């Protein structure tokens, strides 16, 4: 029987004490264990930033790539081995600034991977500049007069991009977060999970207390139906994005892999790739 301890390795995280990312790491480890996945059957692909280090702190396969590109790497990996459990992780800078294009198109493409964003509304590793998730007026090293642009709305973006799984959680709520990641991993397509993961060093506005005060759990909203996209969008807008839980899920939409014509049922990395002589001859005939 696999337990979350099997997903611990010997590397000591270099996150600040109190960083929200510790809980996200713990939730991924617990979710994988709850799903009875063995460490070698999981790969975590991360971007760059504090959150990017996460792939190195879990006893599983892990790739720490380049800034903003965790998603295309993770999708390529999943296409090469459709049996593998693939989780992509990153921060709000990684996913919503430099990598925003990939975020939207990964959502559209719907390859069966899980994307966990550690959203702290600030750039931490570069020591405190504004993020696309910083609220307008937020004072940082790069916005001394307060951020001019409004904060990006990831849930609305995800919903309007055709997401089949959209969820949000808060890093202190380990139980809910674990359950959501589990559901995301079970989901047959692309699962988008935004996690409020406070930065205790550079963000003195969006603190643990601030989130506790402002968040509404969808489980407390009576009759909320996560299969209704219109209601999901309305609710997200109504609560200004400060809700947690599974916001939307479409369980009927097949994943990208299910739709690709001719795509091998066996993982591609196990395929016999030597072409047969008659196959080559057949291909050459078209040019004669």
């Amino acid at each position, binding site marked *: 029987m696999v337990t979350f301890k099997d997903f*611990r*390795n*010997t*590397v000591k995280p270099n996150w600040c004490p109190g960083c929200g990312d510790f809980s996200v790491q713990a939730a991924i480890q617990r979710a994988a264990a709850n799903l009875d996945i*063995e*460490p*070698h*059957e999981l*790969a975590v*692909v991360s971007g760059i930033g504090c959150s990017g280090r996460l*792939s*190195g702190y879990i*006893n*599983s*396969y*892990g*790739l*720490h*790539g*380049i800034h903003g*590109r965790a*998603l*295309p*790497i*993770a*999708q*390529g*990996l*999943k*296409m*090469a*081995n459709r*049996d*593998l459990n693939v989780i992509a992780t990153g921060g709000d800078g990684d996913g919503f600034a430099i990598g925003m*294009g*990939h975020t*939207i*198109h990964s959502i559209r*493409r719907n390859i069966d991977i899980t994307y966990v964003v550690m959203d702290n509304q600030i750039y931490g590793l570069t020591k405190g500049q504004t993020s696309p998730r910083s609220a307008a007026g937020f004072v940082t090293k790069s916005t001394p007069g307060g951020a001019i642009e409004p904060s990006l709305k990831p849930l609305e973006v995800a919903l309007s991009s055709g997401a089949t799984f959209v969820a949000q959680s808060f890093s202190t709520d380990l139980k809910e977060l674990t359950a959501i990641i589990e559901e995301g991993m079970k989901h047959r397509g692309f699962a988008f999970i935004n996690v409020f993961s406070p930065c205790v060093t550079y963000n003195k506005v969006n603190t643990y207390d601030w989130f506790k005060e402002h968040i509404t759990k969808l489980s407390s909203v009576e009759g909320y139906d996560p299969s209704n996209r219109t209601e999901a969008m309305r609710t997200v807008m109504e609560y200004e994005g400060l809700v947690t839980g599974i916001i939307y899920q479409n369980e009927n939409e097949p994943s990208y892999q299910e739709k*690709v*014509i*001719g*795509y*091998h049922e*066996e*993982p*591609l*990395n*196990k*395929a016999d*790739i*030597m*072409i047969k*002589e008659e196959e*080559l*001859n057949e*291909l*050459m005939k078209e*040019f*004669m």
Partner: protein
Amino acid sequence: MLHQLSWKVGGQQGEGIESTGEIFSTAMNRLGYHLYGYRHFSSRIKGGHTNNKINVRTSTVHTIPDDLNILVAFDQETIEINYKELTKEGVILADAKFKPVKPEDCLAELYIVPFTEIATELGTSLMKNMVAIGATAALMNLEDEVFQSVVNEIFGRKGEAVVQKNMEAIAKGHQITNELLKDQVGKFELEPGDGKHRLFMIGNEALALGALAAGSRLMSAYPITPASEIMEYLIKKLPKFGGTVIQTEDEIAAATMAIGASYGGARAFTASAGPGLSLMMEALGLAGMTETPLVVVDTQRGGPSTGLPTKQEQSDLMAMLYGTHGEIPKVVIAPSTGEEAFYDMIQAFNIADELQLPVIVLSDLQLSLGKQTVEPFDYSKISINRGKLKMDELPELEDKQYFKRYEFTEDGISTRVVPGQKYGIHHVTGVEHNEEGKPSEAAGNRKKQMDKRFRKLQYVHFDTPVFTDAPNKEADVLLVGFGSTKGAIEEIRPMLDAEGIKTNHAHIRLIYPFPVEEMKPLIDHAKKVIVVENNATGQLANILKLNMGHHDKIVNLTKYDGTPFLPLELLDRVKELLTDGDI
């Protein structure tokens, strides 16, 4: 009878010019001629002058010629733009519809044939190109039947009647030209072809087929001229092999997705041109640092920026050798013919797997889009070597112990395992790392890992790093090139020889690591080294000087107006350089 014929068809883009050339050349290929076709086109969908020039020969050919024997014109612009290429025995076959006028200084004869009118009489003006093919058949004394199989394939699914009509259009064009041109009939009759079955394909198709034969099952790519045909070909074929092509949101995703798939153990690749390669530079660094095999095709076109997207250039060379920040080991290979394009792709995948690094296959627009005769591929030459990739069971590790994916070894190459394997867990990062892949900034480890990665370059196995044709022990001139300039260089050597100038030819196919050993005797035994390349700054010449010295005798011969080298033009340029100097 002739051994060679140069034929061109021109008109407005979207008018069927391409298919006219296609039908003519496919028929010639089936008769066993050697062909080389080059298309002039613009970056727009409809309108704008386009032409397709085809060199038909009874022996091997890798270039278009300077001159032209037959010009089929569907508008006056085609005549204006192309008439200067015509020899004085040349012929213009022009559609009566646009009331063609022969330019004053045109040496060739203008014959006005009612292409459109005949086609319209037969049912639709669309068949005017078939009438033109019939007119060509008259000049070449070809039987109409040689076009039958091609017409069957193109129009077969539209029914027997359509096939009949098109064959009738050819016959009508043939017949009326016979009547109009009486004394010209058969003027351009070629010696018969050898009837052998050869491939007639663009370089991009050879590259794509090479990737397929190399076992690539996943291609991630973003459309761009002149690379798109590679993804378009493979999306048709890969599903039959269990794989697919993913059109990504940009070239950064294309390259990183291929890296992800390769990390997962599949053979994956991407293809693009200059602007896309610029976007992929950071990904190349990741592949180099994480020792992930990656094959990238760069079909060079006119740069910089958007540059000349539909024109020939070879100016990405330095960027491919030195692009990406920091220092990574990388292999750059440059095929120069369709055959090489195919086999080099297989070698590229093998080298990438063996050495666990990025391999760039450098093509250029002329090679990628030029439609050429290619000898059928030899199945026995296809081999797949995945190097130290270990996909079977691994020895047990202690709990929490990581697999040494970046173990220090004598050849610098470590055993590669992929996600999903038990006892293979390791970390992969673009951060400097230790043998287990865990981040490490320690000075000693850093140096050892850098040395390990670069040590791999000593083990590049590439079958022909330099194509050499060096009959002269001591040469007056060594002609050096890479990529599609090969054909033009081959053409002028007998001409130089006839003038008493002894030449050797070295076409560099492995550009990095540079084949110093192979090049040394060739340079030592040449009075002058002329480097022929399609760029402004003489990039290959500079690389030659950097690796070989001999600055005194290495001379640049560059062309960067967007058009390929033509043999006679190249001949003049070489002779100019020789009279300049001390030979």
